């Protein structure tokens, strides 16, 4: 019997007090995610239970109990608060590969009341600068491998007081404002009094891309744990004896909501692989650690499909009992394939950085309609709206996917962008930016974005940030970035580039521009294709009409061209 049991029964009279009660929380109590994910588990007698089984790409393994998690997160909390004098509410960036220090420091920041800002380790200097400037970060926790990127931008970050480099060797060369730190060599801190956060105390800042402007920091609060705890229990079906693997990097919200907070608030053992995608290594990991619940992304699943069935036969994956996916719609073929090859279907889940937790999903025991997002989580009102922001009652008619707030983990604002935050709410609905339809049985079906945001392998990229950096290239006069359909990644970036006088559209230049974007932003933002053009379609007011380029790319009707500027 699954944790959720009957979905229909759960939907009757649902209240988030279920989670609060299980977490022994009463209104007005202090609540600190860092404490809940480590110390509380020790108090419940789970101190010697494995919390983290970490494996590096060379096969090196490290194991940590909840007691270890408590001690090591205490070390970070102590360093940040007592030694460096950082205070509650200060933004502290974590910029690391998926090493144990990432997890310890994330909890340590929350314990001392700071706001954790985890950033994807593949971000280039422009991606880093945008985010660090926006949140006025006080400190960055990073590694020797990644600190060169911070050093390149440090002079443009006057609020940045501390750069802490993870290093066993205290004598590494350090620059101004830097220090070395090793959790294993730091004095053992048995007890750290967690900051008495309340439900509304800010906890985590996750950056997400929109259709206009630079990425926005979605601010979460400590109350988000109620949502993440219960959805991890009911959707991921996590149970005390599970060995759980979430493949997401904590630089993205999946990696914190369900790679840290959800599982550890439940006292679950989880596996982390710090390495790139290699099918054999993934299967070997599942076999070796007898992973039971696996939460991954459609892009990875499609790459596993591409790797084929034969390779699966070399491994014993019988430990698996529940599979879920996230980030982009899971195509029906992938659901059918996984059932055939793993004996289990992937359950698609839908949510966003702004929602903080899974809100539409396929649930254990519920019939899966391959290709469907599933149904709304109990207690959540989800609808599709017209462009007048009124619910569409007609079945299977596409509209704007919207949700009725509140729920505990909904974002509380975009950092330094109140207008942007308020624009996401219309008529009492949170407008997701996704388009969807609802069928006769109440299942939601994804119909694409309602804006120009590009979804590359489950990660949203804004065209503006790509175009802005393209303009920094010496050869580029004008540019437009769109999403191009891709069989593995759902979409990849395609850039249209008009060159400055004196530059020729050569293969070398194309490669140069691609690598330029990759190094400045990330491989996710890197155009997989560049088309050199003489000019770009624009409105009379000069706004680039990306939808025209997108339609032409997809062989679709270009729609209303009445606002198109005539040449």
């Amino acid at each position, binding site marked *: 019997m699954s944790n959720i049991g009957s979905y229909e029964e759960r939907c009757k009279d649902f209240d988030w007090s279920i989670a609060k009660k299980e977490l022994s929380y009463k209104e007005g109590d202090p609540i600190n995610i860092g404490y809940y994910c480590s110390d509380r588990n020790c108090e419940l007698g789970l101190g010697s239970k494995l919390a983290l089984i970490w494996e590096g790409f060379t096969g090196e393994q490290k194991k940590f109990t909840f007691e270890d998690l408590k001690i090591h997160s205490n070390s970070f909390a102590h360093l940040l608060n007592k030694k460096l004098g950082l205070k509650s509410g200060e933004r502290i960036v974590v910029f690391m590969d998926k090493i144990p220090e990432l997890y310890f420091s994330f909890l340590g920041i929350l314990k001392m009341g700071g706001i954790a800002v985890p950033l994807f380790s593949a971000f280039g200097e422009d991606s880093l600068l945008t985010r660090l400037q926006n949140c006025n970060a006080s400190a960055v926790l990073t590694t020797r491998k990644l600190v060169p990127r911070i050093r390149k931008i440090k002079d443009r970050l006057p609020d940045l007081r501390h750069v802490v480099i993870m290093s066993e060797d205290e004598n590494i060369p350090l620059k101004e404002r830097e220090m070395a730190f090793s959790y294993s060599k730091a004095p053992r801190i048995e007890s750290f009094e967690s900051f008495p956060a309340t439900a509304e105390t800010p906890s985590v800042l996750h950056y997400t891309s929109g259709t206009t402007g630079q990425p926005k920091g979605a601010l979460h609060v400590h109350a988000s744990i109620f949502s993440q705890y219960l959805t991890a229990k009911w959707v991921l079906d996590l149970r005390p004896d599970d060995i759980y693997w979430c493949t997401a990097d904590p630089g993205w919200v999946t990696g914190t909501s369900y790679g840290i907070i959800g599982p550890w608030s439940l006292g679950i053992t989880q596996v982390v692989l710090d390495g790139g995608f290699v099918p054999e290594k993934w299967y070997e990991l599942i076999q070796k650690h007898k992973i039971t619940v696996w939460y991954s992304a459609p892009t990875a699943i499609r790459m596993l499909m591409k790797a084929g069935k034969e390779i699966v036969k070399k491994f014993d994956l019988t430990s698996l009992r529940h599979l879920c996916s996230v980030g982009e719609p899971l195509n029906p073929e992938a659901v059918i394939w996984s059932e055939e090859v793993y004996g289990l279907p992937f359950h698609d889940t839908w949510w966003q950085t702004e929602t903080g937790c899974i809100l539409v999903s396929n649930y254990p025991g519920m019939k899966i309609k391959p290709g469907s997002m599933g149904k709304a989580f109990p207690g959540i009102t989800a609808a599709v709206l017209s462009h007048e922001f009124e619910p569409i009652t007609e079945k299977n008619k596409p509209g704007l996917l919207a949700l009725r707030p509140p729920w505990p983990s909904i974002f509380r604002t975009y950092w330094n962008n109140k207008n942007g935050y308020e624009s996401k709410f219309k008529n009492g609905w949170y407008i997701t930016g996704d388009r969807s339809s609802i069928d006769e049985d109440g299942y939601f079906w994804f119909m694409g974005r309602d804006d120009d945001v590009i979804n590359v392998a489950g990660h949203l990229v804004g065209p503006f940030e790509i175009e802005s950096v393209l303009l920094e290239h010496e050869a580029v006069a004008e540019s437009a970035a769109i999403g191009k359909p891709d069989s593995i990644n759902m979409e990849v970036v395609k850039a249209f580039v008009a060159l400055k006088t004196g530059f020729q559209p050569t293969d070398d230049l194309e490669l140069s521009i691609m690598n330029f974007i*990759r190094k400045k932003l990330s491989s996710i933002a890197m155009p997989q294709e560049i088309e050199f053009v003489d000019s770009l379609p624009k409105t009379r007011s000069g706004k680039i009409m990306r939808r025209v380029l997108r339609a032409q790319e997809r062989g679709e009707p270009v729609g209303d061209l009445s606002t198109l500027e005539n040449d």
Partner: protein
Amino acid sequence: MKEELIEYIKKEFVEDPDEEIDETTLLISSGLIDSLSIVSLVAFIDKKLGVKIPDEKGVVENFETVNKIIETINECKK
């Protein structure tokens, strides 16, 4: 060909000037190159080495080491 590939990878993907790359260095597992960055290598191989790598060969398994990349290039040449 090996030296050209190593030089390109060092120039485009390695940030630490003291980090050594050879023909057996794990490129994908280590996270040095991810699946989305493979297109950069494929474009380089096409433009500089004159070999087109078809989509079905442009998979992570074929780019895990320089040796593996060379093996893939030689297969595509046939």
